[in-house]
């Protein structure tokens, strides 16, 4: 259960939003919409505790995330505009090392399975810099399949993906949400998934 009360965000002298309230419970997902520059990315970074809000508070299971710290971060997964994917490493190495950073470990077989699921079979050992734009995104999204987290915060996850990959990712999100997870995402396209809430900035 993630909730926020009277959040506000200021960039330069521009107030992107003020007094924003939101609440997303288990089994629900939130679609953050808005024009270019409305403040979607800024909101997601605030919700993930990367940057502090100008005002307001964010609660996770009723407790402020500032005091929760690590306990919040362990249950949360944030994927932003940037890949967080090392161009020199192969998809396989990227995935296993990301898991180790999270303090878990991932067997090679599991990693291979996740990559195959995202259509990267045969590219497991090719350094990421040789991959196409969409394939790079897929490596990133494969983390969704292997990391156990209750709350997903995804910034434009559908960018650069082809139709097949969009379906695959939608499936993954539905699975996560119906299993009691929470997802917050931005996208300029409309997404037809059950149990969605919409927030327009």
């Amino acid at each position: 259960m993630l909730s926020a009360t009277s959040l506000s965000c200021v960039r330069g002298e521009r107030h992107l939003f003020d007094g924003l309230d939101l609440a997303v419970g288990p089994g629900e997902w939130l679609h953050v919409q808005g024009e270019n520059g409305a403040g979607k990315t800024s909101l997601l970074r605030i919700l993930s505790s990367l940057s502090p809000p100008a005002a307001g508070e964010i609660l996770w299971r009723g407790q402020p995330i500032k005091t929760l710290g690590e306990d919040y971060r362990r249950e949360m997964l944030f994927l932003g505009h940037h890949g967080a994917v090392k161009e020199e490493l192969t998809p396989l190495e990227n995935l296993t090392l990301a898991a180790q950073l999270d303090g878990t470990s991932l067997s090679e077989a599991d990693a291979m399975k996740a990559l195959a699921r995202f259509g990267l079979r045969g590219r497991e050992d090719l350094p990421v810099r040789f991959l196409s734009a969409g394939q790079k995104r897929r490596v990133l999204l494969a983390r969704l399949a292997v990391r156990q987290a209750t709350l997903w915060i995804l910034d434009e996850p559908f960018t650069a993906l082809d139709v097949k990959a969009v379906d695959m990712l939608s499936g993954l999100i539905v699975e996560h949400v119906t299993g009691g997870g929470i997802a917050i995402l931005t996208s300029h396209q409309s997404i037809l998934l059950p149990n969605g809430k919409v927030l327009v900035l």
Partner: protein
Amino acid sequence: MSAVFAIIRRDLLLAMRRKSEVLTALFFFIIVVSLFPLGIGPEPALLRKIAPGILWVAALLATMLGLARLFAPDHADGTLEQMVLSPTPLGLLIAGKIAAHWITTGLPLVLLAPVLGIQFDLDSGAQGILVVSLLLGTPLLSLIGAIGAALTLGLRGGGVLLSLLVLPLYVPTLIFGAGAVEAYISGTGAGGHLSLLAALLVLGGFFAPWATTAALRIALE
């Protein structure tokens, strides 16, 4: 804790993958050291006199060159964000990254220094002191450098700004490091210098990761 080793392993793997990186820091060291006889002239007595200073300054510059790339690639591709959001305390991860930086840039210098010392006609005792002083000093350079790297992260012209911030802080390390070798050569004994260097290392080992972490959090806000 395993996350720390994971990050060291990852950074070493990346260094190997970029192949040239470790080798070229070394070559930079060699070339800078070799430039001086070219710029100054070949008199052996003069060269022997300035050898400890030049070797140490070159080691310092070689370490410093790699600093800009300590956090920048991880920042650019979003890995640093993920590290901040990781359940492992950021300080530990940062300590791991600093350790990896030392292994890839400081350690090779320590190993190579004696060979270059021969070029300047240092005797084996002086060589030994040189190696010990570098062994104590280069980790300190990595530690202090990390603070500067974190402070200048993502800033335009960061590389040069970084050296501006870091070089003044390197002064004591340089003085005690080069001083140890010179003291040995002049017969006053290097013990004092080396123990001061060790004390600074302990101090740096405590505070630098902390300051670096704070600076990184600010850079990412």
